[in-house]
């Protein structure tokens, strides 16, 4: 098992490296002057030349590639064209905001999805089963900006229950990260984005849980547990759901990978100051150093979550032996 995990980690590092390389190639293939991506065209001639030498843009392509990799690893990601701040400083603050929203969204999605899916599978064909399937499929078909704007129109504009966006109200004083997270104001701002994320991603874990419950419920050990006279609730939760959970863990990797796209949209709709919004803003204003670094960080989140899912899968299913082919 240790070997399996080690190999997964190496694969992940390789993937990260490959994504960085693809990004490099994309930026160099861009039509126009390649220097425009790392040096602000707003600077004067002399500063541009100095920066060109610093970034190695007067050197051959492969040297540039190594400089690019070195800068990436040493977290030297340049300065923003628009604010001249260090890209690293901007993004670290943004990264936490994104992770907060992502974790909240994923937690709610999995909690609701697993529990609903469990009951749906247990009472197959019931009202809850059919109703939840259709509702979840409709919300899955609605990109998060539709759900998000709809929630805004109903809950914020009409009923004035929840704030329209941002992470905190103007004028609210913040002391420390932990203190901030548990303020009522922040949680208030977190509600709508979290519901939006959940509505979009709920269908996958819920339906997988349901289908895998059905599969497990057909097996002999469930009949045996029932025959032993255990309470139906115990059979459902302790025996069936536990085994069915495995399939949910497997898809959650794919789900997390996809969640990034939804994250970008949700952050934009609710002006949540995270990486996704940063990515959109920097790409539209052609602030290339920020766009490049945001993309790499988002890719890193995807790759790390894929890795975590692989590893947790390995712990949950002992049938995966050393050297077994993982997909």
């Amino acid at each position, binding site marked *: 098992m240790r070997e399996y995990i080690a190999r997964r980690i190496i*694969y992940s590092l390789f*993937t990260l490296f490959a994504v960085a390389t693809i990004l490099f190639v994309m930026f160099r293939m861009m*039509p126009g002057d390649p220097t425009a991506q790392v040096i602000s065209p707003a600077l004067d001639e002399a500063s541009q030349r100095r920066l060109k030498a610093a970034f190695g843009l007067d050197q051959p392509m492969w040297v540039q590639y190594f400089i690019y990799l070195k800068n990436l690893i040493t977290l030297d990601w340049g300065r923003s064209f628009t604010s001249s701040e260090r890209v690293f400083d901007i993004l670290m603050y943004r990264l936490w905001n994104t992770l907060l929203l992502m974790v909240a969204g994923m937690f709610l999605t999995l909690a609701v999805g697993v529990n609903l899916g469990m009951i749906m599978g247990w009472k197959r064909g019931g009202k809850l089963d059919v109703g939840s399937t259709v509702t979840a499929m409709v919300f899955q*078909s609605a*990109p998060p*900006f539709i759900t998000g*704007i709809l929630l805004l129109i109903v809950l914020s504009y009409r009923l004035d229950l929840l704030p329209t966006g941002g992470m905190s109200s103007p004028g609210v004083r913040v002391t420390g990260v932990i203190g901030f997270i548990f303020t009522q104001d922040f949680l208030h701002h977190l509600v709508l984005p979290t519901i939006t994320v959940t509505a979009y991603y709920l269908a996958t874990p819920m339906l997988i849980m349901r289908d895998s419950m059905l599969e497990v419920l057909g097996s002999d050990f469930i009949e045996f547990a029932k025959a032993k006279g255990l309470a139906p609730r115990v059979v459902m939760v302790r025996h069936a759901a536990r085994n069915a959970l495995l399939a949910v863990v497997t898809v959650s990797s794919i789900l997390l990978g996809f969640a990034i796209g939804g994250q970008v949209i949700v952050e934009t709709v609710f002006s949540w100051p995270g990486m996704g919004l940063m990515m959109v803003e920097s*790409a*539209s204003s052609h602030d290339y150093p920020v766009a490049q670094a945001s993309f790499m960080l988002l890719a890193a989140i995807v790759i790390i979550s894929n890795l975590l899912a692989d590893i947790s899968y390995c712990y949950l299913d002992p049938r995966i032996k050393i050297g077994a082919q993982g997909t």
Partner: protein
Amino acid sequence: MTVEQTHAVAEAETGIGRLWRGLRHVAASQYRIINSNGLGRIGAVIVLFFAVIAILAPLIAPHDPWESLRDSAGKIASMRPPSLDFPMGTTFLARDILSQMIWATQTTMLIGLVSGLISILLGANIGLYAGYYGGKVDEVLMRFTDIIYGMPFLPFIIVLIALFGRSKWFVMLAIVLIVWRTSARVVRAQTMALKQRQFVTAARARGCGDLRIIYRHIMPNIAPLLLLYTAFNIAWSVIAEAGASFLGFGDPDQLSWGGMLYEMWISGQSRTAWWWFSAPSIAIVLLVSALVFVSRAYEEVANPRLRQR
């Protein structure tokens, strides 16, 4: 039709007649699959409805979608709610939303269909080769697929568009480059299971080449799976295009549903203009759910265990 029968038909005839019979057989079985499933039938009708609108767009759009219109009194008809003159209302710039919707249908359907089909072609081939050959080929192709799985989808489209310009061709390219990954993994798994089966061994014993086995013996057996993922890929392409357009990375010369919502959003009229929000939103949800319903119909064929449920 069993595997043996499929092969008997495939091997008995030659030329145009076989192609024609094959096409007719495919069309008839598609009709049967979709028609046998209630939701699938509804989905197919909705998709066809949008397809007809897309084709007829130049004929049925009542106004020029880009023109700022005036009402009968000669005033600029900005932000009008639905009325007899403007059945779906007008935008901030006094453009007719119904006409915009009709033209946008064309863009969305085109981008969805083209990128959906190209991506299934790509994904299916990569999956077939990886699954059939195994070993080094599999290793290389699957590591490549892993890399694509490391790409965040929407950010990839955004970066590509930001670098190369806002054009529908780059939107399609970006979608195709990502969407194939899921179909490749699924097709690979299915191919690996099928190649152990006796009919493959029999075909090889008869002297069939690898390519013939892949395309004539294995591929027909995963046809329902391929159709399922074709529907999925089209749905994903539609969602991705809508998302990219909503974020302002769509083709500025093409109307699309996501692009209309972007216009609505940046004009700051989302508080009042419910009609401007609902028309494109309902269209997106309808088309994507319709595609999902169609794919569910194929899923029951691809995965017979689901049928009894």
